[in-house]
């Protein structure tokens, strides 16, 4: 085990991907000379040259579309979109082209495209830079949606994603970039099929992904002090969702809280909750609870932003209420 930051893990993953296959290239806003808005590609221009580390104009629709075209042409593009908010400008390319071409060509073409982006709030960058729209993308058939929460997943998921024949979207929580974690060096690859149980416990299942994983683990620590032993499930892959790991946990604990930084209405947490009802109704000892973001544009002031987002205290409170305390 070695300690590295999430940002270093992403960068190591990018370097490995670029080394693994000459057809892999990285493009996006400021990924070259500037080294990436979140410094994930710092140094890569010098190492791999401008052919493979390409700065693009500020036009998401154009460069995501170019990525689709490059993938069709036999390349393995990695497109970095600065944040999840800006990728909305490329939604047409994603929904109408990237996700559909295999289907509409009768399987003649596939789009092995990777799109990475920063997601999430918590850094006081206000309502236009703080969205958590993973759930929107998880809605789209034809693509894979990943949410690496640990440095090991941030390090290894990219190379695994390059094995996929269809588009893969990787949501990196911006709050995590500077945080350090233990890199599991024994795991040279990770699977893109299973959710991970990050902590085991018999009393209640906390089900989450991405940046919220760390809040759920903190809540589990607090709960442990009062004798409630929570299990924490990291979904890792939002599409296709590994519901069986979730159901196995809920069948054991009989209670579930789903934590999702998205707004509650129509959230990914809503989907998880519905699938728990469908798959484990008779094992539930109470309604499935959700801790999501308050339904407001994410505020700029710190105290309001904190109040709008899921927090360990809110998770603990949801657990108390479920357990009749």
């Amino acid at each position: 085990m070695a300690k590295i930051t999430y940002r270093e893990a992403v960068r190591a993953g990018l370097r490995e991907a670029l080394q693994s296959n000459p057809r892999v290239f990285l493009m996006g806003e400021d990924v070259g000379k500037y080294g990436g808005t979140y410094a994930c590609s710092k140094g890569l221009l010098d190492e791999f040259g401008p052919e493979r580390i390409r700065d693009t104009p500020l036009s998401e629709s154009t460069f995501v579309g170019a990525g689709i075209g490059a993938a069709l042409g036999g390349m393995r593009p990695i497109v970095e979109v600065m944040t999840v908010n800006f990728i909305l400008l490329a939604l047409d390319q994603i929904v109408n082209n990237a996700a559909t071409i295999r289907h509409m060509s009768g399987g003649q073409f596939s789009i092995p495209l990777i799109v990475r982006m920063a997601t999430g709030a918590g850094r006081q960058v206000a309502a236009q830079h703080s969205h958590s729209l993973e759930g929107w993308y998880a809605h789209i058939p034809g693509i894979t949606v990943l949410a690496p929460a640990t440095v090991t997943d941030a390090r290894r998921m990219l190379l695994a994603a390059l094995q996929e024949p269809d588009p893969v979207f990787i949501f990196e929580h911006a709050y995590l970039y500077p945080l350090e974690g233990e890199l599991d060096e024994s795991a040279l690859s990770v699977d893109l099929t299973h959710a991970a149980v990050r902590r085991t416990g018999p009393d209640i299942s906390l089900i989450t992904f991405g940046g919220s994983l760390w809040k759920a683990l903190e809540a589990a620590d607090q709960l442990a002090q009062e004798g409630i032993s929570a299990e924490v499930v990291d979904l890792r892959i939002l599409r296709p969702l590994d519901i069986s790991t979730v159901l196995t946990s809920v069948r054991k604990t009989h209670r579930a809280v789903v934590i999702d930084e998205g707004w509650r209405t129509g959230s990914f947490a809503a989907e998880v909750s519905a699938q728990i009802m469908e798959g484990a109704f008779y094992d539930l000892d109470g309604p499935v609870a959700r801790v999501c973001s308050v339904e407001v544009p994410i505020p700029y002031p710190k105290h309001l932003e904190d109040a709008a987002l899921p927090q360990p205290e809110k998770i603990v409170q949801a657990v108390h209420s479920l357990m009749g305390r």
Partner: protein
Amino acid sequence: MAEFVMPTLGSDMTEGTLVEWKKKVDDRVVKGEIIAEVDTEKAAIEIESFHTGVIEQLLVKPGERVPVGTVMAIIREEGTQTIPAVQAHASTPPSQTVSPKDRVSSPPHAPPPIAAPVIEPGRLRISPAARKLAGELGVDPALVQGTGSGGAITLDDIQHGAQAQRRQRSASPAFTTEAGDRQARMRQTIAAAMARSKREIPHYYLSTTIDMGRAMTWLKEENLKRPVTDRLLYGVLLIKAVALALRHVPELNALWKDNAAFQSPDIHVGVAISIRQGGLVAPAIHNADKRSLGELMSSFQDVVKRARAGTLRGSELSDPTITLTSLGLAHK
């Protein structure tokens, strides 16, 4: 809502007379508790409720004679009381018209109230897992106090309920009622039932002679060891012998019901008991094959006493899987 109907306490019973209500309107009644006394012409029988709840209505007056199946009372089952409105709902302000100016200064979108689960009247507030466990453990969830969110019944509550039920079962209930005078009608009913039996059921008779010498010697010696109050009657040996014999010939431990033979897994020996001033009933001694002679003796004494006091329970009269008539009482 549950209906309490005039039960059938034997194949020959078509109607019954309500002797007395043991409960008033608004009284709470627990499943298995005595709710009424009914005269079947053979005996006054105390009838247990199959439901737990509160008596909503009593539809039949004492002295009324009604056919089997008549609804006699309505029981409002537990958990149907109105649940106090959930706070999130209560605090939702009435809708107001807002001027455009007000709108600017108000927060962009108030978070929509989270739909709190509201339990409709008649539904128990119980988790799906708890309901399933209650079914498996045979616990009536209506008798269980919920400790979950909003008073919901949880898995733990059902576990505790099962423990409480086990404790309750091991304690024996006490009952007292007085018998009525119904001798003439009882004679009439027995005559009708016997006549019908002879008319409708093919009869055959088997007989054998058993030397009871050893048994009687054993009984005499055994009784010398016992205190007078615990001494065994000859009839108890017969009950036990019949029950054990049925284990070897389970085909005889059967009833003809709904045009099919129904073999009972349990052995409940009905013992014919003559009632003073004439009359006869045959209440069941439950699971006679599994009980010791001492236990059978006390059960036997108990049913004899209650048969004569007119306080047999409905289930005792309808349960027998075989009936034993014994002149052994003469050996008392």
